[in-house]
């Protein structure tokens, strides 16, 4: 549906898809941070619109959401934020259904999707919206040309998986392990199992939940992923910067370096050389 997202996965390179919470720890710094991860090699950026009850989130992203909300982030400001960003890669909005549902004068998802499309958002990920409840949002996304990206969990199997695959657009978000978001020190066996279950479908598979290092990224891409999604490992850098009051540029540099590590890991996993070394 979104040509920009399709183009990323047609390039033949594994996609690096970082996540940050918009407005964390404040509007201006967050703009710098998102632009830094693009410089670090992001192919698509998932940008969180903070919701007060983020039930799929571990403590790292919960804290980021609190920082952003306390700094004044709202859905309206989020769209301004997206419009202020100077990035070329496609942006995917990650948020919870109530914010989508309440936006605009009438309840229902249409007004939100219309505004998101106008701001240049290419897709949506909504962790508390399973396929069962997604028809109204899917219709709005179809109308305005956005991808509605579904999450395939380690528990998504059999008929359920098949039904979901009929409706996929953009890419599928392969949840690497059960539980909530948060950086981990290992790669879960559930990742390999999920990728194996999905092998017969040609749709691009981006793996997220727990990826922390370039080595993880390499390992997951070599296991068959078409992309990696990394949130908490980057948000941790934002959190450290906010805790120790570091200058915005210093934090942005660290984010860019971490992004490059992850992107290079992903490239290595596909048997490709890191971007800088291709002279």
């Amino acid at each position: 549906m979104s040509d920009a997202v399709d183009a990323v996965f047609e390039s033949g390179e594994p996609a690096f898809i970082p996540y940050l919470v918009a407005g964390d720890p404040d509007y201006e710094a967050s703009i710098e941070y998102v632009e830094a991860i693009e410089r670090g090699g992001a192919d698509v950026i998932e940008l969180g619109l903070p919701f007060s009850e983020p039930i799929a989130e571990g403590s790292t992203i919960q804290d980021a959401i609190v920082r952003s909300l306390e700094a004044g982030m709202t859905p309206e400001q989020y769209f301004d934020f997206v419009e202020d960003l100077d990035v070329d890669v496609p942006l995917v909005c990650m948020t919870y259904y109530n914010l989508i549902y309440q936006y605009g004068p009438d309840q229902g998802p249409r007004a939100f999707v219309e505004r998101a499309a106008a701001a240049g958002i290419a897709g949506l990920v909504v962790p508390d919206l399973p396929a069962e409840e997604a028809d109204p949002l899917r219709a709005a996304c179809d109308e305005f040309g956005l991808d509605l990206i579904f999450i395939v969990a380690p528990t998504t199997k059999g008929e359920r998986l098949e039904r979901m695959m009929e409706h996929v657009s953009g890419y599928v978000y392969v949840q690497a392990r059960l539980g909530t978001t948060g950086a981990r020190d290992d790669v879960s066996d559930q990742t390999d199992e999920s990728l194996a279950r999905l092998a017969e479908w040609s749709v691009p598979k981006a793996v997220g939940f727990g990826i922390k290092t370039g080595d993880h990224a390499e390992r997951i891409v070599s296991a068959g992923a078409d992309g990696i999604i990394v949130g908490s490992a980057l948000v941790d850098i934002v959190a450290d910067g906010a805790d120790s009051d570091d200058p915005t540029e210093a934090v942005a540099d660290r984010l860019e370096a971490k992004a490059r590590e992850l992107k290079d890991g992903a490239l290595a996993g596909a048997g490709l050389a890191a971007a800088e070394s291709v002279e």
Partner: protein
Amino acid sequence: MSTDSDGKFGAYGGQYVPEALMPAIEELRDAYERYVLENEDGFMDEFRERLADFGGRPTPLQHAEQLSERYDTAVYLKREDLLHGGAHKLNNALGQVLLAKYMGKERIIAETGAGQHGTATAMAAAHLDMPCEIFMGSTDITRQRPNVFRMRLNGAEVNPVTTGRGTLKEAISETMRDWATNVEDTHYVIGSIVGPDPFPRMVRDFQSVIGREAREQIKAKTGRLPDSVVACAGGGSNTMGAFHEFVDSADPSSADKSSGQHPRDRVDLIAVEAGGSSLDVDEKAGVAPNSATLSTGEEGVLHGARTKLLQDSDGQIMESHSVSAGLDYSGVGPELAHLVDSGRVDAVNVDDEAALEAFHRLSRLEGIIPALESAHAFGYLEENPEEVGDVTVVNLSGRGDKDLETVVEETEKRDLDVDVDMSVFREAER
């Protein structure tokens, strides 16, 4: 038993949960339909037997003589405070823990606000030999200490939840996170008629024993149905438990005019919410100093269901407030929201002060110390005795032992004229 087999109540209800939980929810729906609705393997027989032997059902329906005289109307109390554990919560907790056992689950988790549901779940889990972990907001741990002791004594882990205001909303979010992590061997015993389908109708079915008994009991005592049933509402489980059997009742016997007994064509159902300190809302601070979701909330999606919510105009969920931990929640059960919209249930509210006064009044006049949650129902009776008709059933959802310290403190703070002098402690120390 249910007419809502798609899990929707009008526009409300549904299953708004992470994909990782959906297979478990499908499994639960299947188990609910087989064991609870179809009584497969004699599940319901075993449940009823355990509710009687372990729980102490049926609970009495008591004529409250002093209140009846005070309000010049026949007031009957459905004594859920006498159920094992001291609240209606065991009806649901025992049902769900037993169901988890039938489903082959190995671990029980639950959230709790007042600690009554956590306590009931811990008791049921000990009784049925299942390991159990309870998530409880840090604010609630402090204000409902006796229940924390009880849960620990029954062998449950108690995990403090420190996010947000540390009350029921945060506890539910955190329990959902645990469930999403351990869904393969764990059952989440939700404590009210909230959450994704099938929880709202399943919890209601387990709780509907309250109204079923009350209906028989009031007929035996008065020969008629009541004019009204009054119950407090947090999530709404004691509420729907008390109401369910009366929702459809145009009293069949009232068609028989010769009895001439029943002046109304239906039983009025009155849900009493916590008005907190005020019904006003501070959008900027994200705080609603009340929990009057049915009266003031707007439709939205939270904790797995579409329902009425306390939220700001962007859709961010507001922090609620009530002196009573069990009512202190920004959401409400989807079925109750639907019945309010359709006009079948009246949503009213009673503020902190009126609830505290009612707590003292019931303690003195009837010799029954009610839970602060239940006290809201009696606050309504005091303020609106003319609304309940000639015969009313008030659901006394729980007893107040857990609230003693809070009540003494909050009463002193407000300088209410019902204040009880507790200087005896100081005298004894001298």
